[in-house]
């Protein structure tokens, strides 16, 4: 075994020990100090509730419903945000058309849109998707815009001299690939914001299923062990989504960048 592997193994070991220690402390504090399932369900309580949720099938419905809300919002944010960002960044003057509208709408917290989401779409999946959309669209617009603004002039001129003259082609072959790192970063931020909005939207009863909805529902039943199960699930799923996206982008789309810091 070489030194690098040894070091990696030691680091994994440390991480495992750290995690196990926290879980043990949690269990001990819950069992010996708090002794109240409402205030602090123990680790074992949470594991049992988790198994319970798996057994009765609720988990799959909730995850798929939440992912549906998330996807509706993210896809919409991407199809609308990307072109707006491109137009603002590429065409002189377009910035002044969109900027005032965006600057007025952007500071409104996405959750403030929930009443209108319900009025417009009712208690539907679209309604939750809409709230996710509001949260996700601005980071995508702004990062696309910034990415397009910082396209190096020399690439554009090099392309022109090689016969790539029309805006459509310059955007497709030069500006878009050049702006891709910034756009990808924007989508990552958008996914983070969208994930938060998702939970809030579901909590407010925009939908009758989903991970966020279940947190609220179990809270009303004072089943705090279940609340904790869904909290941990939300964190874990968010992490997985972010990791998958990052790996896809770095391995497939951005492998031309040198020294990418993970």
């Amino acid at each position, binding site marked *: 075994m070489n030194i690098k592997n040894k070091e990696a193994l030691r680091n994994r070991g440390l991480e495992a020990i750290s995690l196990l220690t926290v879980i043990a402390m949690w269990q001990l504090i819950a069992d010996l100090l708090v002794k109240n399932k409402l205030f602090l369900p123990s680790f074992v309580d949470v594991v049992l509730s988790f198994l319970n949720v798996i057994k009765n099938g609720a988990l799959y419905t909730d995850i798929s419903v939440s992912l549906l809300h998330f996807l509706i919002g993210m896809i919409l944010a991407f199809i609308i945000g990307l072109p707006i960002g491109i137009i603002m960044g590429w065409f002189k003057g377009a910035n002044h058309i969109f900027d005032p509208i965006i600057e007025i709408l952007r500071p409104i917290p996405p959750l403030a849109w929930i009443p209108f989401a319900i009025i417009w779409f009712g208690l539907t999946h679209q309604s939750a998707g809409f709230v996710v959309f509001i949260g996700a669209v601005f980071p995508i617009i702004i990062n696309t815009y910034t990415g397009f603004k910082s396209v190096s002039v*020399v*690439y554009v*001129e*090099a*392309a*022109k*001299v*090689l*016969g*790539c*003259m029309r805006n459509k*082609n310059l955007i497709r*072959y*030069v500006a878009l*690939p*050049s702006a*891709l790192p910034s756009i990808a970063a924007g989508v990552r931020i958008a996914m983070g914001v969208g994930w938060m909005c998702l939970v809030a939207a579901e909590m407010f009863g925009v939908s009758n299923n989903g991970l966020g909805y279940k947190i609220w529902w179990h809270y009303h039943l004072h089943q705090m062990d279940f609340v904790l199960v869904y909290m941990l699930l939300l964190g874990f799923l968010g992490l997985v989504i972010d990791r998958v996206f990052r790996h896809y982008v770095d391995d497939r789309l951005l*492998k*031309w*960048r*040198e020294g990418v810091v993970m």
Partner: protein
Amino acid sequence: MGRLTVTNVSRTFKKEDGAPIGALDDVTLEIKDKEFVCFIGPSGCGKTTLLRIIAGLDTPTSGEILLDGTKISVPDAKRGMVFQEYSLFPWRTVIDNIAFGLLMQGTKKKKAIKIAEKYLEFVGLEQFKNSFPYELSGGMRQRVAIARALATEPQVLLMDEPFGALDAQTRNTLQHELLEIWGKKNVTILFVTHSMDEAVFLADRIVVMSARPGKIKEIIDVDLPRPRDRTAPESNALRNHVLKLLAEERER
């Protein structure tokens, strides 16, 4: 053919307060087909501006430029350009960079790659076919940039201090390679530099320009036999002459 006729070309830029500054003043010049012309002059003499106007990236305030009798207004692949900065598209592999111009002309992908491979061989970088630009050294990047500019078979190759960022050794090698390419392809080359060594080694004619606003100060015919010896007395004499001309400009 690659015959360029530059007639009374002037270019003024506007400063932020609206006051005009002249970059080029009434430049008239005839460049023969397959000629190698170097432009040299103090910084800010408008030599890059002239090259950009010929490329179609900038428009003259007055005057006109004809390529084989046709007026130049927008960039097109008849005039290839190699920039001073590294201008390869970092998101495209070496071979895809070279094929870019061909693809833009509507050449089928397969054929474009085939032609690109020929030019890659031309600059001796076959083994880097699928590398990304960040994996190449500065000299290699400029070689690829030259291959990319040549792939569309331009009549004129415009080079804006293409070796300016390279170390002296690499620079000499690339000068040799450029002359070899020029011999094989027989394109007209317009080469901006601020190294008289480079100009004397490469050019058929050296156009010495005066400080802002840029005017042609003197055109020197370099009738030294090729391949040239960098340290031959004739080369040294010529270098001294250019040096003197440039020194006059600096004192102005």
